[in-house]
């Protein structure tokens, strides 16, 4: 049976994620409520503006249900999604991320849109390392990681892919690249 993938769709590039997953023959559900969340096998928090997505998570009281979801189902966050999955954000005491990965992030840490770029980084999930195109758009950086966090990828010296149990996060946007390598890795966490 194909997996049913939920994409949090309050705001951001959820349509791009959807396009790629449908090509991979997944069932896709756009998630804007707790009820919808409970009907999917895994969840993606897309890129977008973390402050806007966080605001909706609060209004819709979804933080706790997502934390419970993470106990037994995979979650993947890209860019803003990475920020939201982390423990805290540097220079921002107001925001309360979900804390599902023990990392501290910095927003827009590479700079503004002028500094957005496409780079070639390294991805290593199973010991072996492979090259991966990484699209960074006003991207965050991982400033600090906890002892339970596994580093799965880097661009130069920067940590760009992290994992803690079934929760993964990318500072870049695999959904904007032609390769579906990362999506396939994420879907493999279902088994």
């Amino acid at each position, binding site marked *: 049976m194909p997996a049913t993938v939920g994409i949090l*769709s309050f*705001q951001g590039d959820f*349509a791009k994620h959807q396009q790629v997953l449908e090509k991979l023959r997944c069932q896709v559900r756009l998630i804007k409520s707790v009820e919808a969340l409970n009907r999917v096998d895994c969840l993606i928090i897309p890129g*977008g503006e973390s402050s*806007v997505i966080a605001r909706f998570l609060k209004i819709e009281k979804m933080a706790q249900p997502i934390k419970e979801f993470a106990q037994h189902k995979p979650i993947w966050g890209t*860019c803003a999604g990475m920020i939201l999955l982390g423990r805290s954000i540097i220079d921002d005491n107001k925001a309360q991320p979900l804390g599902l990965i023990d990392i501290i992030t910095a927003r827009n840490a590479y700079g*503004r849109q002028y500094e957005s770029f496409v780079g070639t980084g390294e991805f290593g999930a199973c010991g072996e390392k492979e090259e991966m195109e990484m699209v960074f*758009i006003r991207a965050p950086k991982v400033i600090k990681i906890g002892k339970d966090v596994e580093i799965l990828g880097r661009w130069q010296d920067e940590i760009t892919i992290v994992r803690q149990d079934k929760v993964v996060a990318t500072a870049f946007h695999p959904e904007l690249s032609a390769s579906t390598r990362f999506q396939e890795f994420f879907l493999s966490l279902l088994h």
Partner: protein
Amino acid sequence: MAMDKEFLLKVGLAEMLKGGVIMDVVTAEQARIAEDAGAVAVMALERVPADIRKAGGVARMSPIEKIEEIKKAVQIPVMAKCRIGHFAEAELLEELKVDYIDESEVLTPADNEFHIYKHPFKIPFVCGCRNLGEALRRIHEGAALIRTKGEAGSGNIVEAVKHLRLVNSEIAQLKKMKIDQLKKAARKMRVPLELVKLVARKGKLPVPNFAAGGIATPADAVLCMKLGAESVFVGSGIFKSSKPEAVGKAIVTATTHFDNPAKVVEASRLLGEAMRGLEIDKIPKEEMLQYR
């Protein structure tokens, strides 16, 4: 058409702005209010369209120090407007490192013949359109995001609706065309055949398509989203209302939950007075912004 990397990054940022509200702001204080209300980006300009309309005279790019203040005040992307064809203003905005440039009919055009050739810029551009031909010409020149023109500063949604529907129906017609008809359409719209074929095949524009020009209430935002807009720009509608913060928040909620009227109702109570609108027929033709 495989996107080159530069263009991928430009369109990529527009993808990140989907399902959101981009709010016009004149000051850093307004920018902070917009960010707190849930804006996905702010648009810096000298005066909101309703005031440009009232004051008359030449409307230009926002003063440098205003843009710098606004950039400092918020974490979300900052866009700014330049005059149509005024590539020197655009160069200044690129130097200021705003995140998006709106080559906008709301300001007084600087060139009656040419729009800016946008490809060489590293900063992405958004441009307005009234129909598919305008949209495709702007994309061909390098725009990475398209919005309807609507009628800015009117508080009247009728023109934005007209432009959204027209673009949709022109795309639907392209989808049914054979190659000879596509060639004719490309000639008529003055764009390359390849671009027209791409739109016919995909059934949508190759870049995101947002709505702008006359959005004043949460329901206006819902209407645009239901007609296929992927985000909304709100100009005078927020800071010309009696309760900008509440109206801003309500339009943000309405844009996200456009498919859920119960949520829109919940967010839309006690909003005070919306901006006073104008009937399009009562605006003298030479004062209409969309014909620029």
